[in-house]
């Protein structure tokens, strides 16, 4: 099936198998490998991207479902070589170690802040429940998201 999906503002088009997952479209067809695959049950959130402005797990969306849509991946977050404030906050607060969960975690966190769902530590912890990290124990991720949310307010 023919799909056309805007990825990070660039129009892409391809013939795909109906069963092709959006994450594999992004990785294997478009060639953007920043979005990772960490599980096969939509549990880990490593593949989190923004589809039409909302964070979704791209392993749970078929490429054909995203036809005509607009996708932002981790590669589309920094602008003009400047890290997005959330990326910067993760760095400042040592919110990443091996980095594998990081793209998905950052994309989920950006949504959380943009949707105004960050009120306190508990709101960040609940809001990131769908994104697993095995390295950081979340302590610094939570700090980073709170810092970025604070920065977004000021």
């Amino acid at each position: 099936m023919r799909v056309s999906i805007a990825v990070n503002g660039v129009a892409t088009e391809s013939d795909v198998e109906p069963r092709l997952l959006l994450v594999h479209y992004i990785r294997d067809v478009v060639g953007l490998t920043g979005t990772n695959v960490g599980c096969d049950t939509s549990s880990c959130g490593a593949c989190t991207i923004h589809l039409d402005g909302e964070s979704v797990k791209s392993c749970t969306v078929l490429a054909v479902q995203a036809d005509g849509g607009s996708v932002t991946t981790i590669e589309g977050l920094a602008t003009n070589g400047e890290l997005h404030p959330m990326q910067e906050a993760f760095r400042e607060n040592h919110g990443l170690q091996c980095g594998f969960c990081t793209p998905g975690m950052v994309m989920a966190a950006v949504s959380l802040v943009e949707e105004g769902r960050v009120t306190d530590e508990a709101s960040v912890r609940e809001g990131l429940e769908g994104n697993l990290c095995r390295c950081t124990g979340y302590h610094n991720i939570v700090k980073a998201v709170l810092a970025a949310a604070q920065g977004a307010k000021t």
Partner: protein
Amino acid sequence: MSPVVGTPVLRKEDPRLLTGEARYVDDLVIAGARYLGMVRSTEAHAEVSSIDAGPALAVPGVEAVFTGADLQDAWAAPMPCAWPVTADMKNPAHLPVAVGKACYTGDIVAVVVATSRYAAADGAEAVVVDYKPLPAVVDIEDAATDRVVIHESAGTNASYTWALVPDPDAVERAFASAVHTVQERYVQQRLIPEAMEPRGVAVVPQPIGGDLIVYSSTQIPHILKVMLAVTTGVPEHKLRVVAPAVGGGFGSKLNVYAEELIALAIARKLNVPTRWTEDRTENAVATVQGRGQIQHIELAADADGKITAVRVKLLADMGAYLQLVTPGIPLLGAFLYHGVYDVPAYSFECTGVFTNKTPTDAYRGAGRPEATYAIERAIDALAAQVGVGTDEIRRRNYIKPDQFPYASPAGLMFDSGDYEPSLDRALELIGYEGLRKEQADRRASGSTKHLGIGISTYVEMCGLAPSRVLASLNYSAGGWEAATVRLLPTGKAQVVTGATPHGQGHETSWSMLVADRLGIDIDDIEVLHSDTALSPIGMDTYGSRSLSVGGVAIEMAAQKVLDKARIIAAHQMEANEDDLEFVDGEFRVRGTPTKAMPIQAIAFEAFTAHNLPDDIEPNLSESVTYDPPNFTFPFGTHVAVVEIDEDTGHVALVDYAAVDDCGNQVNPLIVSGQLHGGIVQGVAQALWEEAVYDDEGQLRNATLIDYLVPSAAELPSFKLDHTVTPSPTNPLGVKGIGEAGTIGSTPAVMNAVVDALSPFGITDVAMPASPQRLWSLIQEAKTR
């Protein structure tokens, strides 16, 4: 230039990881690569009667199917076990693709070669395998009875028995004269390491020379290269192994895996690039698991609760085969079952048994969390018996600061330690007195929200390892690490390390060490690693060894560069070497402020070699291979606070304090990050995680839906502090921190759980402390 070591420098690694630029194995673009699909046994123990590849070959995109028999000629040796712990250890031949019989549900019985990821998966599903099921051996104690023997060639399920009993009579005497004795049985449930990046491998034959590049998501490219050569017969110099970005390991990628050998063998057979990436459910059965022990620990103590002897017997689950260091894992704990306590008499024995389950091997802490758990739980039981607080019983037994270096009853020499201050500070951080009061108030008021406070003080042996000690333990390799520090003509520095990072931030820490030693800006330093072509010599990353072995090698190599630069500087400035001082990156002649040369200028002089002393070789590039004289012994005290809901059995971890001592800290940001992650992995063992097998040997919770890796929502933030007791055995005074969190946390949490439930007369709770388990225990206690 102010020193950077000891300051929280932001990581150099982060920008590429934060922007998606980092390349993990599955991210590599490899033209013409064939995707492999592994057909794994659906039975835990079965004869493989027949394999029909026909339906798979009919799947579009599937090009070939290999069975175990088809690949038998590809192996020069079976899968390697590098740690034959005893001379008579049973190590049945383990082939990458099983032939005739499968021994666990991850065992590969056939391999599909296809042109795409999806076709490989379809093909693997289409292969028809007939099994003749055999009775599965699942339970460790059942395995030890030899009711069903898994490996006929071994004749028994017992792989080995290893003992450490320095003075049996002393142990007997201590127990005979003891006022208090404690006997406990603990189960270390199996854990799935669950590194967020599943394993992956890609093998690319080179167009000329017969060379092969192996990309693998591994902690050990250097060791893997040697083992690939041994097992496939490819000459070692024809192999280059690269670990690109690696998404966590925790010990699970410290191994030589069937898929790595298979990808290499098929790439050679077909002369095409091959690649394979594990999916998560596959990972649960195909990647080694951790723990898996039944522990019997006995303490003898005098009337005051001073421990006089520790006696330990373990039954350790090897799983179906011995992987790279499977049998040695319990031995890494064998020396530490007396913990931080001054105990005169000691006895340890471990029997490793085969079961029809995924092989066990290293998982964060590897042997030491198990040891710490047993002693730290048992000492709480002793405290209850003696009738003193769990803080007080520890104070009475700690090895005292003036006893260091401490000759341990198990034969180690603890380098340095001062345990009580870590307890004092941890209790202060958590607000211990107030919590005990709140606990008493809640109990008095009949609250159904039970508060529990648990303490654990740990010591670990890390910095693996002095090579001669490894020899005495029958390990097949050394424990050194290699480093090269070189200055380039333009004054930039290159650091080559044999340590292989997979999240630990080596590029940052190594740059910091060299920046301080050579007065060069961190951003002018590049760290080369994880590629055997760039870093040919190394022993890789595990066992909290990178800084205390690899970092020390870098420090020493940088010092050698500086020493040589000083000779050149003296020559160039026509000064006496002794009259030079090295300040802010330049050599200055004392008393002559105008005479100075920055180290970058000396690098250029060393490069041109136009004007060097007669006996000095060109270039500034120095290499060191450092073999540590001893292990290092980090320690600390962790305190966990839990709240248990009597009506549901739910445990909430409400507060947590940890005071750790890893000697001098190079980067406190990285130290705290290692602790946070380690603590959560240990908490997860206590409260949530367990690989659950049914009686047929099927893993019942292979997905991340069913296996509870904690999310942020289950956890609090942590209160950390540290003490600093430098190690006297290395010039940096460092000890290691990678595993400390995991070692300290599990017993702290379980002691808190037991403490919370003590009003019910409950004295032990098995892990994980699930709501169902606790609710049942509470109901039983109420009806007693």
